[in-house]
């Protein structure tokens, strides 16, 4: 009984995977009885990280190994740590007008974000539901 609630899903990094993975995360958080407002925001942030892995990570990759993994783990006290990880290549890019909202959205919602770009990209997000919606 002591292990924390967790969810891990690996899917092919293709556009249709994003919705399925968000749905699984939403149902997981709903089962934990988290508040709907917090669920909306967490799913939004994780959804951005998933969309990035799907859109950018494998721009120049061969067809194999195009995968994206979502890992989420709830701690007590309304904390959730989540990680979206791919095995692609992070693309450093100058800010493009009308784009580049994804990571900004992630940073607005998560209380802590760390981006690691070794053997692919890993976006680690910490959500603290007690501190959420502070920006709104």
């Amino acid at each position: 009984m002591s292990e924390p609630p967790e969810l891990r899903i690996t899917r092919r990094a293709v556009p249709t995977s994003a919705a399925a993975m968000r749905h699984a995360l939403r149902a997981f958080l709903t089962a934990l009885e988290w508040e709907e407002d917090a669920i909306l925001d967490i799913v939004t942030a994780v959804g951005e990280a998933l969309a990035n892995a799907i859109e950018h990570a494998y721009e120049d990759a061969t067809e194999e190994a195009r995968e994206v993994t979502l890992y989420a783990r709830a701690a007590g006290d309304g904390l959730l740590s989540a990680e979206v990880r791919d095995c692609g290549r992070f693309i450093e890019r100058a800010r493009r007008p009308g784009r580049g909202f994804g990571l900004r959205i992630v940073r607005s919602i998560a209380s802590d974000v760390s981006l690691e770009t070794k053997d692919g990209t890993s976006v680690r997000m910490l959500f603290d539901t007690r501190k959420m919606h502070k920006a709104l």
Partner: protein
Amino acid sequence: MSDLRVIALHGELDIARRDEARFALRADGDVGAVLLDFADVTYADSTILSTLLVFTREMGIRGVPVAILVGTPQLARIVQYAGLSDILPVFNERSDALTHLSEGRR
């Protein structure tokens, strides 16, 4: 408001539906105002925000007011998180959206 164009989308607007959204967001011809009826949209990601931004700017250049009617709080909130509240005209109530459009009409 005979030349009001209503564009309705529904469901989850994410990266998998970007092309569909881009295709839907057109307003050719003589249009006086555009209501983007997203009342039945349940989720939007940032790729859709980019599409909305392009569309709203194009319409702005043509002097055509745009209003985005949203149903889920998720859409209103992602707009704020992206820092686009002052740029994307988001409304929770249809009447407010229509008022905005009639005030902005040529």
